[in-house]
């Protein structure tokens, strides 16, 4: 079905659903049209539940995984709560993909990759991780830093273990507060950065996490001599329409749904409302 109207969603069917934490659930969908979503890592969709509304959600699967797309959604509002009540076979509406991508086919190629993720910031970055692993020869060393509040908030625990076991991949994790079973690192995400060795000229860094995280991570990356041109940030805003009209995601003159959510840091450094 071709959609000429920019606001009308196309149907998709929920295939699988699995709780990941108390608030986050993993979903796998396919488009009813049988077409590929055609997204790139870092992009998002507008997901509709009829009668409830529409919400912007990051795509978590890599485009290398054909036929389906995956998301991890935190239950915080009307749409995400309604989504959590759906079961396999249920329908949702989909618009998109929208927004910019992590530059996996551009400047990231041939480089070492440093990914700094906080909380559900891992969700869109996972798309890039799996894309990189599926095209392993195109990239150098892959370092994944992942911080969550408590061990119970960790997403993709199995995949984290698989990534850790992959050669040329480093995964460092931290929690703000540990529990009895946690024997890993404790501290905010920035405490992981001194533990990694990077060659700044050969590295592309990506940051994705809660709004408060960026300025602290950026400061640490600057100390590590990372250039602003080599840092990419994925920013959260209220991307209501996805088509650069409704105004909610505006950050000074930038519509995050169009010019973002992935920005090269040097391009938004001077944008007052950005970081």
């Amino acid at each position: 079905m071709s959609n000429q109207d920019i606001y009308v969603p196309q149907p998709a069917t929920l295939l699988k659903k699995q709780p990941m934490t108390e608030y986050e659930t993993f979903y796998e969908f396919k488009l009813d049209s049988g077409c590929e979503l055609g997204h790139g890592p870092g992009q998002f969709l507008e997901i509709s539940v009829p009668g409830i509304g529409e919400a912007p959600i990051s795509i978590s699967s890599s485009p290398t995984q054909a036929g389906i797309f995956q998301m991890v959604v935190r239950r915080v509002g009307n749409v995400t709560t309604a989504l959590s009540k759906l079961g396999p076979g249920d329908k949702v509406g989909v618009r998109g993909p929208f927004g910019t991508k992590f530059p996996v086919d551009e400047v990231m190629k041939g480089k070492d990759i440093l990914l700094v993720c906080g909380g559900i910031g891992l969700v869109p970055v996972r798309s890039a991780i799996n894309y990189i692993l599926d095209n392993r020869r195109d990239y150098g060393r892959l370092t994944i830093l992942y911080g969550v509040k408590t061990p119970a908030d960790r997403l993709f625990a199995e995949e984290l273990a698989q990534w850790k076991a992959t050669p040329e991949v480093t995964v460092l994790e931290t929690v703000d507060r540990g529990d009895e079973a946690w024997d890993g690192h404790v501290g905010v995400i920035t405490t992981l950065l001194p533990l990694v060795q990077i060659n700044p000229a050969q590295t592309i860094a990506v940051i994705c996490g809660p709004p408060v995280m960026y300025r602290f991570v950026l400061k640490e990356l600057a100390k590590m001599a990372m250039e602003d041109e080599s840092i990419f940030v994925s920013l959260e805003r209220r991307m209501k329409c996805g088509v650069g009209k409704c105004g909610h995601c505006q950050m000074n003159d930038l519509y995050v749904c169009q010019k973002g959510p992935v920005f090269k840091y040097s391009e938004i450094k001077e944008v007052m409302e950005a970081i």
Partner: protein
Amino acid sequence: MGHSELTGELIPRHLNVRVIAKDNLETFLGGLREFGEVFGPVEKERGAYIYAQLTDVKNVVQDAQRTVLPPKKYLYPQKEELFRFSTQEGYRKPESVDKGRKILFGVHPCDIHGLSILDKVFAGRYHEPRYFDRRDNLIIIGMNCLPDERCFCYSMGTDWVEKGFDLFLTELEDSYFVKIGTSCGEDLVHAQAELFRPVTDEDIQLYKERVNERNKMFVNRVELANLPQILELEYESEVWEELGRKCLSCGACSAVCPTCYCYEVYDVLDLNVETGSRIRRWDACLFKDFAKVAGGHNFREERSTRVKHRFYHKQVTFVEEFGRPSCVGCGRCVTQCPAGINLIDVFKEIRGEKVVHKSAR
């Protein structure tokens, strides 16, 4: 020489203008119903004008001051259904929007500019079908108004129009000088040709006098030349904090603005809880939750940051995107602000000029 859009042929300049006696105007408006529904300014309450359908052309106020809402309401309604859905069948592509032809009489130059700014916003990569379906069916008959103490279109370069209308009227003594802007405008005149007469040398003389007089009537001046740069330099100015304390976050300025276009989208279920509509409604960046995300973080929690965003979007960032401010100087926000915020004073303060505080109302 003028240029006819229909034929592409050059037509002599004097054929582009006509004169209609004031006594003939209501007859002309009545006759326009052959072409579509006719709308124009009427007096809603004493001194408060609104655009309304002219079921009786005698209600039209030919010299109305600014209407409460700008004509954008005919292209981009305050609330509209985007499409229907059903929980069983999903989302249904909308039937085409109301494509009935509308004729809008008495549109002031600032509002004609306002529409051309909305055209830019709703075009682009994601072309807005509802807006342009209506736009294509809108006939505009402009009116050369006289400014009051709240108009600053002169400073915004929107006091005059060369295009964006089908016909454009300027008051002479007991008649109007009619400029024909499009082939459609030509048709409107042609259909009731007996109401119009050719332009005489005397008309031209009078027209020039009127236009020159009007230029001298603008009392408000905003220096636009380097305003974006000065605003950028004053991003951290105390003025914004002060405005944040004054502003009530009511969004009236956005609702009445000819170029404010932000919107909210939500679903409404029918009583059967099976079917429903997705609705789009005007929103305002002044509202508290405008930039709040689902997780609870509000990117513009402070009222001052919201007021500032509105000013900067109009005067700085819109210029970067589209090459001109999105403000057209119509004075509606100044008229409607319950807190008496006057943006002309705000710009003066930002420039470091002395402001004599006076009530906006």
